[in-house]
C-alpha cells in the first residue's frame, strides 16, 4: 500500500487510489467539480490542481495515481492562484442567478468561491447567453447558462442509468448540455443528475421553489419505497417534509436512489394522514385520541378475543419495522390467536439490475422472519374468504403506508371491513374509509417510517436500523405502543427533550465530493 504526504501529513492509501481520494480520506479541502466517487474520471474542470514534488508542473489530483513516497500539496501560492483563476474562468458566462436559483445554499460554486476563490472578476466581455428553463423531462429542469460543463450528469446517464440521454453539444463557449433533439430525460433515476450537478443547472421539478434549502433540516433514514431499502436523507422543517436524497451505502444503494423513492415523503405529510383515532359502532363516526381508542379496545375486545381466539385474525403488510412485528406477534401469542395473513399487492421478484425491485414493501423479509416463529402466514384472500364465511369475526389490519403501490387497496379494505369487529391500524387516510361495512370499526393512527426508530430487513436479509427523524402527527402511535396499550398496560414516556444526535448540517453543502 503506497504511502504519501499530503499537506505535510503522511497517509497510507489503497493501491491504485488517486490523489483526490487521498485528500478525501484525510478530509483535506480540495477544490473540484467534475470528480465524483461514483463516476468515471473526466478531468475536465481542472480545479483539483496539486503540486507533486519532482513533477513537471501542477497535476490534477483526480486523475493522478498515488505513488509510494509522493509529497503532495495544494497549499502553495501557485496552486492557490491556479484554482482562483480557474474558478474565474468557470464563472465567466455564469449568470449569477442565485436569488432565483434553487441550488443557492448548497451550490458548489458558492461554497468553493468562498473557500478557494474570493477574487474580483477581471472579465470585461459580454456573457454568452444560453437556454434557460428547459423542460428536460418529467422531473428535471435545465438551465444551461448555469452549467459549468463538468459532465457529471452526462457520465451518470452513460455509466449508471445506462440510458445515454444527455450529451454536451456544440464547441467552445457555445457548449451546452442537453438531450438529442430535446428528447425527454425520462429514466427511472433522473433526479440523481440533479443531486450530482454541482451547480443549479439541473433542478428537480418537484422541489423547485418550494423551499429555500437553508430552511430545511435533514436526517438519515431508510427508504420504504421497495425492498432494496436505499439509505436516504429526509429534508424537513416545521411545515412537513420536502424532499429525499440518497446517502452513500456501499452495500445497498451506492450513491444513488430511484425516482419513485423521491416521492416517499409525500404520503408522510399531514394532509394525507390520519390525525386522530376514529370509531364507528353504529352509524356515526366519532373521533378520539389514539391512546384512548386503544384503551377502549382493550376494555371491549381484549377479553372477547382471549375467550375465542380462533375467531380472530391479523392482516399484516411488509411496511412495519421488525420491532413492531415482534410486539404484534407477542400480543397474538398472549391472546392465543393463530391466524395471521399477509397482504402484499406487489409480490414479485422483478429487479431492474440497478436498484428498483418489484416488491414495493421495505420489510417483507422482516415480516417473514418474525412470522416464521409464529406459524405460516396465509394470504389476504384467505382472510377475505374466512370473513365472508363468518368464521372470522374480529380482524386487525396493519395497513400499508405507501398506498400508491397497493393496487387493490380499496377493494381489500371493503372486503376486510365486512368483519364484525374491524380494527384498522394505518398512517394514512383515504376516501374509502367513509364506507366501512363493519358494525364496529376502529381506525388507529400509526406513525410513519420517519417518525419512529426501528429496523427494516431488506431483500438480501440485511438488517438496517434507522432513527426517528421528525414528528408529523403528534397523536399517532407506533404498533409497539398500540400493542402495549391494547394489552392494558401503560406507556412510559420520557418527556425530557432529547438532543438530536444524528442531526447533521446539510451534507451537500459541506461535503460536495461525497454526494
Amino acid at each position, binding site marked *: 500500500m503506497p504511502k504519501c504526504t499530503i499537506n505535510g501529513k503522511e497517509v497510507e492509501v489503497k493501491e491504485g487510489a488517486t490523489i483526490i481520494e487521498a485528500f478525501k480520506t484525510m478530509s483535506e479541502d480540495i477544490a473540484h467539480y467534475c470528480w465524483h466517487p461514483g463516476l468515471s474520471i473526466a478531468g475536465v474542470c481542472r480545479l483539483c490542481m496539486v503540486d507533486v514534488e519532482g513533477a513537471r508542473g501542477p497535476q490534477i489530483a483526480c486523475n493522478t495515481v498515488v505513488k509510494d513516497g509522493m509529497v503532495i500539496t495544494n497549499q502553495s501560492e501557485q496552486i492557490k492562484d491556479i484554482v482562483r483563476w480557474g474558478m474565474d474562468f468557470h464563472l465567466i458566462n455564469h449568470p449569477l442567478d*442565485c436569488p*432565483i436559483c434553487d441550488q443557492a445554499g448548497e451550490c458548489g460554486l458558492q461554497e468553493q468561491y468562498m473557500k478557494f476563490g474570493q477574487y474580483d472578476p477581471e472579465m470585461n466581455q*459580454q*456573457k454568452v*447567453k444560453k437556454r434557460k*428553463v428547459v423542460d428536460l423531462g418529467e422531473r428535471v429542469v435545465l438551465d444551461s447558462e448555469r452549467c459549468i460543463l463538468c459532465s457529471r450528469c452526462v457520465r451518470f446517464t452513460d455509466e449508471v442509468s445506462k440510458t445515454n440521454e444527455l450529451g454536451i453539444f456544440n464547441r467552445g463557449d457555445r457548449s451546452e448540455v442537453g438531450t438529442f433533439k430535446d428528447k425527454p430525460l425520462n429514466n427511472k433515476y433522473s433526479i440523481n443528475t440533479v443531486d450530482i450537478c454541482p451547480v443549479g443547472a439541473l433542478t428537480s421539478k418537484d422541489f*423547485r421553489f418550494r423551499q429555500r434549502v437553508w430552511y430545511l433540516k435533514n436526517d438519515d433514514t431508510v427508504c420504504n419505497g421497495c425492498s432494496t431499502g436505499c439509505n436516504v436523507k429526509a429534508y424537513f422543517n416545521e411545515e412537513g417534509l420536502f424532499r429525499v436524497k440518497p446517502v452513500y451505502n456501499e452495500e445497498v444503494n451506492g450513491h444513488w436512489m430511484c425516482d419513485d423513492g423521491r416521492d416517499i415523503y409525500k404520503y408522510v405529510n399531514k394532509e394525507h394522514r390520519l390525525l386522530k383515532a376514529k370509531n364507528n359502532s353504529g352509524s356515526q363516526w366519532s373521533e378520539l385520541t389514539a391512546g384512548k381508542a386503544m384503551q377502549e379496545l382493550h376494555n371491549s375486545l381484549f377479553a372477547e378475543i382471549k375467550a375465542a381466539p380462533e375467531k380472530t385474525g391479523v392482516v399484516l403488510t411488509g411496511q412495519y419495522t421488525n420491532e413492531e412485528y415482534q410486539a404484534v406477534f407477542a400480543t397474538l401469542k398472549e391472546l392465543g390467536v393463530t391466524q395471521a395473513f399477509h397482504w402484499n399487492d406487489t409480490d414479485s421478484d422483478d429487479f431492474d439490475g440497478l436498484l428498483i425491485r418489484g416488491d414495493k414493501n421495505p420489510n417483507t423479509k422482516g415480516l417473514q422472519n418474525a412470522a416464521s416463529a409464529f406459524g405460516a402466514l396465509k394470504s389476504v384472500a384467505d382472510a377475505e374468504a374466512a370473513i365472508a364465511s363468518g368464521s372470522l369475526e374480529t380482524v386487525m389490519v396493519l395497513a400499508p403506508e405507501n398506498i400508491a403501490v397497493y393496487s387493490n387497496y380499496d377493494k381489500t379494505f371493503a372486503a376486510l371491513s365486512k368483519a364484525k369487529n374491524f380494527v384498522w391500524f394505518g398512517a394514512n387516510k383515504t376516501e374509502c374509509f367513509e364506507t366501512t361495512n363493519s358494525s364496529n370499526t376502529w381506525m388507529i393512527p400509526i406513525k410513519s417510517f420517519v417518525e419512529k426508530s426501528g429496523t427494516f430487513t431488506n431483500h438480501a436479509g440485511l438488517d438496517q436500523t434507522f432513527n426517528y427523524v421528525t414528528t408529523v402527527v403528534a397523536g399517532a402511535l407506533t404498533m409497539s405502543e398500540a400493542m402495549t396499550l391494547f394489552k392494558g398496560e401503560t406507556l412510559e414516556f420520557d418527556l425530557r427533550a432529547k438532543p438530536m444526535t444524528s442531526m447533521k448540517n446539510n451534507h451537500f453543502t459541506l461535503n460536495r465530493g461525497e454526494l
Partner: protein
Amino acid sequence: MSKVPQPSELSNWYLPGILKGLGYTFTNMVKNILNPKKMSTLNYPEEKYKYSARFKGNHILTVKKDGSLRCTACMLCATNCPAQCISITASEHEDPTVEKYPINYEIDILRCVFCGFCEEACPVDAIRMGPEWQTPGLAGADFHYDIKKLAYRANLKGGIQSSVDDKERHEAGI
C-alpha cells in the same frame, strides 16, 4: 461617565418636593406663553412633524417597467429579517425570463422593528422602506400587509419603479 443627579435630602419631605415640582411647571408655562415657537411638543394630530424623505417607515414593494412586481421571491429578506415577520410563497412564472415570483408576500407590520435589514438584503431593489409612518388600523388583519398594499396602495400611484431591470441587464450582457 454620566452621573444621575440625586435628589436632595429636602425633597424627601412633602412640601419642599411639591413646591419644587410646581416651580418647574410654572417656569416652563411662562416660557411657553411668552415664546410659543420654542415649545418642544406638537398638537398632534392637527400639527404633524415633517420627517426627512429618507425616513424608514412602511415598506414598499417596487415594480418593473410593465407594472408587475419586481420581487423574485428569493427570500433573502425573510431570511435576514430579525423579527421573522416576512412570509413569502414562491411559484414558477409562466414567462421563463422571469422564472420565479411570489404569489404571496406578507409582512406582519406589528412584528416589524423597522430595522431596514430586508431592504439591505434584497439583491434587486424590490423592497424599500418608504417615508410613511402614520398607518393606523382597526383590526389585526389591517396589519398584515399583502402585495396589494405593499406595492399598489393608492398613495404609490401605480407603484414605485425598481432601479434594477432584468431586460437592460440582459442586453448589457451581464
